[in-house]
């Protein structure tokens, strides 16, 4: 149906037009009276009439009339069919054997008159799949479609399709992201897939644990468990560290559906990054078992560095080391000083002595594991410890503990450590029978490795580390050491043949060091005498302790993990930062970057430089869920971190969420329908409604036609002709 109307849009204000019109009429009347006497009334009327018509046309131009033409068009409405192809659509549908996606395909393609074909008669139909992205597909691709995508984002789909479609049809189990925003979306008809009543699942929805914990302090791990079905049964919830079971709890399911929390209290005894997993054994008939496990990486730090120091006798070495350790709030020191040897004679009864027994059995058997570092300070073991105790020290170091020897005349006891377990773990041996020298004071210098090693590289004046050590006062006594192949010499004597003074090394998982002098305290007082303060000694002691105990603050390389767990199939990035200290360049300090999957197999990874000096970006593509190990090897050792990759993001909760679909449909003015016939009927009914309201409107400006512009000079020309004919020109 067409219908027209005229509208005006005056060029000038209306009163101006009226004024000009009145003025024109008055002038025409005056003209008529003036010319009728000369050319007679009939001709005067003709000329005045022509002038009046011209005037009317000019006024008409100024009011700018337009013709509005409305026309109803019959256009086929667009319908977008959205098929959810996320992973949960691979779970069982209405029947036991078919998946939810199979049901969706059958709804569109099967039957006497397939729904897709029927809709095409009334709509311009386009097919889309929703997974990790929205994708247009042809009808021929529909039968081969597989449910492998990630949880779909409906908001993005509505934003993209809402403006170009009149109606949307969504085939989904309801596991889609939709934030309920009030967007202008066309009506959406939702067809729910899957059967919530037959769905049975026990899933670990979430693990709530702090990202970091402290050794020796309990940490709470809360596990949120979601259940569908299985009411009345009790299931075990198992907490593991790697493959080792740490603890287990029982969780009783009272009703269905149910969401409950069970918590574990864990006291980490070791420092490091631990891949923890929580699992519930799969139950009979469970629809989805992939969500029965969940992983977290717990990073355990030490709250304090615990040191056990045994000194052979009271000495300045002991006093200044004690002072350095006691003034460091991150260190807990337990020290024993041998005040009296078996050779000494005591002259007073016990009540007048402050001496206490040396609890060797307790310390060197049960309690050793509670320390991070054991220091023997000029301590010869024989009167106090036996070989079993030394064996325990060796095992302590092999297992990750640290052991340091501060030398002196007593420590080696003229070969007393030969053949003992300590000889095996120490990074140096005595060079001969003469094991200690105090005849000639000796200065120290940094070895090549000492120039870059974190223990000895700490000068406050740029990179002048060698200069700092050469300023240190000479040592009055040194042990004559010979570094083993496994030992790394950091400090050497400067007199005569260079003798190793500080040797460090690794044994098993632990670190060891020998400082072959009992005069290191002179580095404290000697620098003080020079007016340079005591900071060099304090920093040296602090760094030695931190290096030995693998304190992260001393790691030249730092790995920063992403805040959120990774996802399967999505590239994961980790930031690697190298602290630039000393002369070695940052790039040379990373020997290798590698990533290992949960089975321990190396996966493809790459390390790229960034614009920031000393910063690198490592990346890898996880193909399965679990805890991955990221390993960075440097000249100083190896650094490892654990990264969690969530098992199957979509599969964590596979229960059909039909209520969610209902909310979506209602928000858009659509409906939830379960059969093809209902869908077709509703779609056609809606299609009919939108056809009646579709109108095309055209606006035609009347004075835009050129012939109307020609009319005005034509009328003026005619007037001029009549005047001439009347003898007025």
């Amino acid at each position, binding site marked *: 149906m067409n219908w027209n109307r005229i509208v005006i849009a005056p060029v000038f204000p209306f009163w101006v037009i009226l004024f000009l019109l009145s003025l024109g009429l008055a002038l025409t009347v005056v003209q008529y009276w003036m010319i009728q006497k000369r050319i007679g009334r009939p001709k005067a009327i003709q000329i005045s009439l022509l002038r009046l018509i011209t005037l009317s046309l000019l006024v008409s131009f100024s009011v700018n009339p337009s013709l509005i033409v409305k026309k109803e068009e019959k256009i086929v409405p667009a319908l977008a069919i959205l098929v959810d192809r996320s992973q949960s659509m691979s779970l069982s549908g209405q029947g036991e054997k078919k998946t939810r996606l199979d049901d969706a395909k059958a709804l569109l393609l099967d039957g006497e008159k397939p729904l897709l074909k029927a809709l095409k008669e009334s709509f311009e139909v386009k097919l889309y799949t929703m997974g990790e992205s929205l994708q247009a597909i042809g009808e021929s691709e529909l039968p081969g479609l597989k449910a492998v995508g990630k949880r779909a984002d409906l908001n993005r789909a509505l934003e993209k399709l809402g403006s170009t479609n009149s109606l949307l049809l969504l085939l989904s189990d309801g596991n889609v992201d939709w934030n309920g925003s009030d967007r202008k979306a066309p009506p959406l008809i939702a067809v729910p897939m899957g059967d919530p009543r037959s769905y049975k699942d026990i899933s670990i929805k979430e693990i709530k644990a702090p990202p970091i914990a402290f050794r020796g302090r309990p940490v709470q791990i809360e596990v949120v468990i979601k259940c569908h079905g299985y009411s009345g049964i009790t299931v075990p919830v198992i907490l593991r560290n790697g493959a080792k079971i740490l603890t287990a709890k029982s969780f009783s399911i009272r009703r269905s559906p149910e969401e409950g929390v069970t918590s574990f209290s864990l006291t980490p005894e070791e420092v490091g990054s631990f891949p923890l997993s929580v699992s519930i054994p799969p139950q009979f008939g469970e629809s989805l078992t992939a969500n029965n496990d969940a992983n977290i990486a717990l990073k355990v730090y030490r709250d304090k560095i615990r040191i056990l120091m045994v000194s*052979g*006798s*009271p*000495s*300045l070495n*002991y*006093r*200044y080391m*004690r*002072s350095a350790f*006691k003034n460091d709030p991150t260190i807990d020191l*337990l*020290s*024993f*000083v*041998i*005040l*009296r*040897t*078996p*050779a*000494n*004679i*005591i*002259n*007073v009864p*016990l*009540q*007048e*002595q*402050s*001496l*206490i027994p040396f609890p060797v059995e307790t310390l060197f058997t049960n309690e050793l594991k509670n320390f991070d570092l054991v220091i023997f300070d000029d301590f*010869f073991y*024989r*009167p106090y410890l*036996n*070989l079993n105790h030394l064996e325990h020290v060796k095992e302590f170091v092999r297992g990750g503990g640290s052991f340091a020897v501060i030398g*002196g*005349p*007593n420590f080696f*006891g*003229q070969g*007393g450590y030969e053949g003992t377990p300590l000889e095996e773990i120490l990074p140096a041996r005595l060079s001969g029978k003469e094991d*200690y020298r*105090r005849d000639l004071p000796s200065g120290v210098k940094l070895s090549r490795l000492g120039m870059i090693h974190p223990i000895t590289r700490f000068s406050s004046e740029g990179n002048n580390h060698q200069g700092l050590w050469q300023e240190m*006062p000479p040592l009055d*006594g040194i042990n004559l050491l010979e570094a083993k192949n496994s030992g790394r010499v950091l400090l050497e004597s400067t007199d005569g043949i260079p003798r190793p003074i500080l040797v460090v090394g690794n044994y098993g998982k632990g670190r060891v060091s020998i400082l072959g002098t*009992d005069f290191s305290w*002179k580095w*404290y*007082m*000697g620098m*003080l*005498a020079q*007016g340079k303060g*005591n900071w060099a000694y304090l920093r040296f002691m602090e760094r030695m302790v931190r290096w030995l105990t693998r304190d992260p603050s001393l790691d030249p390389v730092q790995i920063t993990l992403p805040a959120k767990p990774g996802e399967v199939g999505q590239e994961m990035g980790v930031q690697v930062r190298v602290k630039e200290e000393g002369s070695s360049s940052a790039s040379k300090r990373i020997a290798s970057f590698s990533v290992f999957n949960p089975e321990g197999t190396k996966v493809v990874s790459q390390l790229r430089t960034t614009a920031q000096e000393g910063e690198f970006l490592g990346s890898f593509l996880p193909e399965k869920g679990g805890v991955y190990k990221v390993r960075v090897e440097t000249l100083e050792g190896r650094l490892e971190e654990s990264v969690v990759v969530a098992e199957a993001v979509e599969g964590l909760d596979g229960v059909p969420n039909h209520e969610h679909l209902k909310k979506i449909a209602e928000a858009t003015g659509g409906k939830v329908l379960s059969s093809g016939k209902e869908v077709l009927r509703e779609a056609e009914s809606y299609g009919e409604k939108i056809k009646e309201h579709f109108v095309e409107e055209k606006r035609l400006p009347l004075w835009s036609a050129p012939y109307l512009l020609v009319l005005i000079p034509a009328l003026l020309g005619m007037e001029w002709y009549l005047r001439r004919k009347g003898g007025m020109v």
Partner: protein
Amino acid sequence: MEFRGEGNNGLSKVAVRNNPQEKSNISRRRFISLSLGLAAGVLFPSFKSPLSASGNQVAPTFPQFFFTQIKYQGGQWDPNPQLLDSLMEELELRTSIRGMKERRLITLSDPDLFFCPLLYMAGKDEFDPFTPKEREILGRFLTYGGFLLADDTMGAKGFGFDKSFRREMNQIFPGQELKRLPSDHSVYRSFYLIETLGGRQKVNPYLEGITLDQWTPVIYSQNDLSGAWARDRFGKWIHPCVPGGEPQRASAFKAGINIIVYSLASDYKKDLVHHPFIKRRLNL
């Protein structure tokens, strides 16, 4: 023979041992040492005798402690020159510390002062004020971990050495006074459990000191400790101890040992692990 009557007192034995007229007692000490060594050998049967490891070979060769006495201007800086022999013998006999028999002498302007484990300053009379440089050096040494034992051999409060020493300490540590050390101070517990302070005389039954944070870098006695330690080259005590006699001398030796141990081990005895033992022995 003067001390024989003291019976079981260990210090008496030291004195007697050093008397050339009582050489048989030297072998007695060796006998006791050997017995203990053998006893330890029984406890650790598979190892060398501890006597051979630490007593005979290494320890005498490399002393780790030496006594450094300050020479200052004016007054009498060395009232008891023979103070050290008996103290060092006692130190070696009773403790694991190996001390040098010879004392070292030093002036306050000597840079080697910073390498002395224990500075000793004794005197009887008033002495000249320290120079500003000497005060600065001594102040820096003591503030950052050094240790000074001062010994007033006259023992007159407010006179002589006492007057000068307090003046210098006031100059070096303005606002810090020499105060009586509390009975639970580490110096009373570093080796022996001391309840009263001996010396040649008994002016104060306690020690005074200046404490900075947890460390007491200055310890001061007015009981003439060195007078009680001093022994002539024949092994006789130079001064009698009054009024307490030999127990008072024994107490002075215990104080000397404790002060030396404190200078090397600091407040080690304040560590928690020692508390239950010390409390039990003191019936606290």
